[in-house]
């Protein structure tokens, strides 16, 4: 390395945004559309689902037939770059606790990965403490965010159905797709168990909404990114149009190191290291907006120590990094024997489920605090690595085309078995609300830095009885639904107290939130109700970090709405010369 220098980018921006996922993409979009000059810093490369294509590929186009690698943990065709482990960017855990941390490194961030499940928080989800005494209420209510949910629905597009359920507010919906065959069976089985089933709510365009984006052509591959932009990803729906205004400079492969502040303690910009040339840079702006993911944003704040902010930036309250929580998850699956030997047709549908179950019970009558929703899958999907395995556990148990066979085997008979069982699989998973606790946190590990010399995060997260009992309830419910459908459980049915009823370790559901939470009391929160730091008025955090709690709803839609709301607030405050 030659002389180490810090290169200062000469341009002065109105906003420097760190991270290009749902929160950063929305902020860039709203600010750029209003004429403000934006610099968007992203730790990964540029990415465009129309150009970086894995959609409509056949399994044999991947030498590993779609199996996962550390570069694509959800499989070789998945759009998302990186995931659980990134070379040279470690994280650690404290006291034998568990936390799995997903990090996307690409334009659009984790919006390239998720299932497009787009649920609004309901009125109760903002006021949980008032209901059950646990955690905290948000400083805002549903009525504050509703107009933004409506705007996000129209801007991004979502399908669903108007149901009038109290805590599952309806949106501005495109028509949903009809249920698939196994989904019709699930509907019946769930109804018998008293479980509500309604059309899913996914940000996929079943109808065209503008000239920039196409409509869904039902290949079921949203996870691969959509070449016609018929689903939501931050790059295709927000960042591309933001760049088209001429007001946004995107700096890819830039790993943020610190938020810079002046003597008065106000943010002046961001310093970063370029992964392309390993040089150090600084970029300056009137405001700094963090959207690097809940944990990365808190890491950045904790690493931004200065004379005025000795405990890290925006951290006089000492809550940054705390209240970290993920959704709970537990799953179970099996086969539907009446679907053996089924007729073939194209049932790909949209990417993901066509139906789901919103939380249908009252926790006052249960032994755990918060609810969960159920996601379903099954049917005749594209075969990938793993398909056809484990026949020895299946083909001796059922009569195949009228013949009882011995388990295992080979030859034409094995081929017949694989064809016979194809498309009969079915499964379901719960996604529930965990309590946001001060004792669950990430902090700076004093002993370790990443390959850029940036101190890394150390996690300390533990489930409580509330989450474990919720997982038990999930499993009981799933078993009942499976039984009612006439399905045979082949996995996930034997979980018990020894393994917390199959409850996934925290982090696994990839809904990290809570580490830079908002609140009315500056002593107990990092941000005010406008996603603005109590201690630094030109600093904002618009990702999952700001969440007080995260309901049992996938958090993306609420990140989009909150980021839009914060961005409009920034524009207003700038007009009033308050920023």
């Amino acid at each position, binding site marked *: 390395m030659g002389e180490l220098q810090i290169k200062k980018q000469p341009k002065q921006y109105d906003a420097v945004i760190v991270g290009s996922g749902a929160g950063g993409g929305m902020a860039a979009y709203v600010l750029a559309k209003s004429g403000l000059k934006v610099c968007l810093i992203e730790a990964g490369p540029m990415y465009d689902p129309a150009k970086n294509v894995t959609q409509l590929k056949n*399994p044999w186009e991947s030498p590993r037939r779609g199996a996962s690698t550390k570069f694509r943990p959800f499989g070789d065709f998945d759009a998302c770059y990186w995931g659980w482990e990134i070379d040279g960017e470690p994280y650690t855990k404290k006291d034998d606790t568990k936390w799995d941390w997903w990090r996307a490194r690409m334009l659009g961030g984790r919006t390239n990965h998720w299932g497009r499940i787009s649920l609004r928080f309901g009125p109760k989800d903002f006021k949980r403490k008032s209901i059950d005494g646990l955690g905290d209420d948000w400083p805002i209510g549903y009525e504050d965010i509703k107009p933004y949910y409506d705007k996000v629905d129209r801007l991004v597009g979502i399908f669903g159905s108007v149901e009038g359920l109290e805590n599952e507010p309806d949106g501005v919906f495109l028509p949903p797709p009809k249920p698939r065959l196994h989904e019709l069976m699930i509907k019946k089985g769930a109804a018998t168990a008293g479980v509500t089933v309604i059309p899913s709510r996914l940000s996929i365009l079943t109808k065209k909404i503008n000239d920039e984006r196409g409509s869904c052509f*039902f*290949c079921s591959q949203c996870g691969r990114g959509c070449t*016609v932009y018929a689903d939501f990803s931050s790059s295709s729906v927000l960042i591309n149009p933001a760049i088209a205004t001429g007001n946004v400079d995107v700096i890819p492969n830039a790993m943020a190191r610190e938020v810079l502040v002046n003597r008065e303690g106000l943010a002046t910009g961001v310093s970063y290291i370029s992964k392309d040339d390993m040089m150090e840079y600084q970029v300056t702006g009137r405001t700094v907006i963090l959207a690097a993911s809940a944990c990365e944003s808190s890491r950045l704040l904790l690493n931004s120590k200065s004379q005025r902010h000795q405990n890290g930036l925006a951290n006089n309250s000492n809550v940054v990094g705390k209240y970290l929580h993920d959704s709970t998850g537990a799953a179970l699956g099996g086969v539907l024997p*009446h679907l053996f030997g089924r007729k073939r047709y194209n049932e790909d549908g949209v990417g993901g489920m066509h139906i789901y179950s919103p939380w249908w019970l009252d926790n006052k009558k249960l032994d755990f605090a918060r609810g969960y929703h159920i996601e379903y899958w099954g049917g005749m999907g594209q075969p990938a*690595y793993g398909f056809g*395995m484990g026949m020895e556990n299946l083909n001796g148990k059922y009569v195949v085309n009228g013949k009882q066979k011995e388990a295992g085997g080979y030859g034409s008979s094995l081929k017949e078995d694989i064809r016979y069982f194809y498309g009969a699989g079915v499964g379901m998973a719960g996604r529930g609300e965990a309590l946001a606790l001060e004792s669950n946190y990430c902090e700076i590990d004093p002993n370790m830095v990443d390959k850029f010399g940036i101190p890394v995060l150390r996690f300390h997260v533990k489930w409580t009885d509330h989450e474990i009992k919720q997982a038990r309830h999930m499993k009981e419910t799933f078993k009942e639904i499976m039984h009612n459908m006439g399905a045979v459980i082949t996995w996930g049915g034997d979980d018990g107290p020894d393994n917390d009823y199959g409850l996934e370790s925290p982090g696994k559901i990839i809904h990290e939130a809570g580490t830079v939470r908002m609140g009315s009391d500056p002593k107990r929160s990092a941000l005010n109700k406008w996603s603005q730091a109590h201690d630094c008025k030109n600093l904002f955090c618009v990702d999952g970090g700001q969440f007080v709690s995260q309901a049992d709803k996938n958090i993306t839609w609420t990140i989009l709405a909150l980021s839009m709301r914060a961005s409009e607030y920034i524009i207003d405050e700038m007009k009033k010369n308050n920023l």
Partner: protein
Amino acid sequence: MDRRKSIKALVVGTVSAGVVLEACKDDKKAPETNVAATGGDKQFTLDRQPIEVERYKELTSKTFFTDHEMATITILGDIIIPKDEVSGSASEAKVPDFIEFIVKDMPQHQTPMRGGLRWLDMQCLKRFEKSFKDCSKEQQMEIVNEIAWPKKAKPEMAAGVGFFNLMRNLTSTGFYTSEIGVKDLGYMGNRPNQWNGVPDDVLKQYGLAYSERELKECISFDKA
């Protein structure tokens, strides 16, 4: 409506952007943008990060199985998935090449495969004084039949049963993710479509029907 026409109708009917035509044209030909995305490596029709291309080159620059082992894998593969009236064999679908790649990509398979192949050869050597690949078809099937049926295999053959399970798994998955295998299975997706719900005859077969509300509110398309 044939597939090509339906793609055209979808594209022309719903989308104007040029990238769409590129993306939806014959999926066997990769759009040029993909090649750019993979650092000019035409090996891939998929978007690849540079580090993934590197990893692929590193894996394929090495050979894991010996010629002897590959010959054995090929024979076993075609016993597990032979040509039948519906489709071709494992070797016709290049399953042995897939197995060579996957054990390099997933090193956890290396010892069970290598050791299992040697176990098989040793059994044959003791019994027939030849390695498996040089045994007669009858001799090969004699030993295969002792390890192919987990429930009725003798306890002393457990190691062979474990190996054959792995071999069956890798062969089946390699075959049914190949072009020949996907066609055999009758998977009809991975192409632009208009989802109109479960076909009427299938609904009838299972005694199911869409509700009036579903028929009214869900997206539907004119049947061509």
